[in-house]
């Protein structure tokens, strides 16, 4: 199976429909702006909540981006072709999820310095923040993919997607924000980082087959 050709296709789709790349990130910055506007003045307590707010926004941004993960392919018929024609459908599907991660989780990690300063995170916490993001966001894309695979058949699947996936996101949120808060308190963060890595690895193990199964169920709804 020509991985390069398969990856190239996913990459081209994102590059040619830039909205899918730009919109979720725009939402993220917009939401950060709203939080800053809503907080009372130059409150010194902002650093306390910054980690939690950042991670919640990362979860919500993922939700937005996930809804469209399979929808285009579902509607154009390329999804059913992927399931039928490929010897191992999980490979092209996994590549799709990987490209989604690159356009959300990876981008957010790279933008973390800007986001952090908007939210009032001290610069000392930045390395920990970026590490937590890069270890935890793959789990968000993968587990979210499972939810997306089951809801792609519904026209207003967005809320149902959130309902299915947000409970699964809870550990990533807890450990992710935990890393940042612990770092600011000067306490060790190794355990939490390992947990994030573990969750992402576990997601990588179970998600591809779960996603393909979910997609096989969803194409029958057409």
């Amino acid at each position, binding site marked *: *199976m020509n991985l390069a050709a398969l990856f190239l296709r996913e990459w081209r789709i994102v590059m040619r429909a830039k909205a899918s790349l730009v919109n979720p990130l725009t939402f993220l910055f917009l939401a950060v702006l709203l939080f800053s506007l809503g907080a009372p003045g130059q409150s010194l307590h902002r650093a306390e909540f910054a980690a939690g707010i950042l991670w919640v926004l990362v979860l919500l941004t993922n939700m937005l981006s996930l809804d469209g993960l399979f929808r285009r392919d579902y509607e*154009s*018929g390329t999804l059913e072709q992927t*399931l039928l*024609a490929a010897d191992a459908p999980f490979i092209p599907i996994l590549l799709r999820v990987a490209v989604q991660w690159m356009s959300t989780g990876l981008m957010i990690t790279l933008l973390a310095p800007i986001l952090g300063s908007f939210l009032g995170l001290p610069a000392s916490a930045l390395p920990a923040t970026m590490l937590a993001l890069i270890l935890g966001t793959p789990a968000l894309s993968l587990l979210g993919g499972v939810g997306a695979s089951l809801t792609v058949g519904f026209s207003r699947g967005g809320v149902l997607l959130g309902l299915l996936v947000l409970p699964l996101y809870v550990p990533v949120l807890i450990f992710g924000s935990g890393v940042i808060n612990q770092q600011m308190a000067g306490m060790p963060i190794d355990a939490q980082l390992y947990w994030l890595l573990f969750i992402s690895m576990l997601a990588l193990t179970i998600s591809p087959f779960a996603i393909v199964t979910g997609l096989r169920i969803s194409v029958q709804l*057409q």
Partner: protein
Amino acid sequence: MLSLSEFTVKRDDNVLFEPLTLELGAGDCMEILGPNGIGKSTLLRALCGLHLSVDGQYSYTAFVYQGHRLGLDELMTPLENLSWFAALEGSTFDDARASQALQRLGIHALAFQPCGHMSQGQQRRVAMARWLLSDKTLWMLDEPFTALDAEAQILLNEIISEHCALGGAVVCATHVLLEVDGKRSVELKNISANA
């Protein structure tokens, strides 16, 4: 290549049509006819494994499926779409062969335009190119005549005839009758009123 034994399709536990028994070998061409809503499309989807509620046995070899949805990405050009299909199937993409196919189907001039800029009929021709380039011998086509103009319909019949002559097999659910020598027809019948 395809064989059905007392095979029928169900939707919400209702059997859609009288069970079918048939065999398709190399060189066979079969059209599946029947009134609207009887389940021609569902039958093909069931044979592909895209619809699980079935009764009876069936077996098939590797196939290319063309459904109602074209299976083309609108942002990509025909050549990009075709090369992706080749990667999906695990076969090597031959640029020259692909260009030849597009030429035969009369859309070579559009080879570098995104499919989204083409008409339905033109996109259908790209889909036809996909079958030509695939190495699978069994073709399962759902309403392939949709949106085709007279010239394209002639092309479609030619392509199907050639494929069968070369030892392939075609199953086609359609309203428009095929004009292929030696074709067989099967008509799906409503379930006779039982108690």
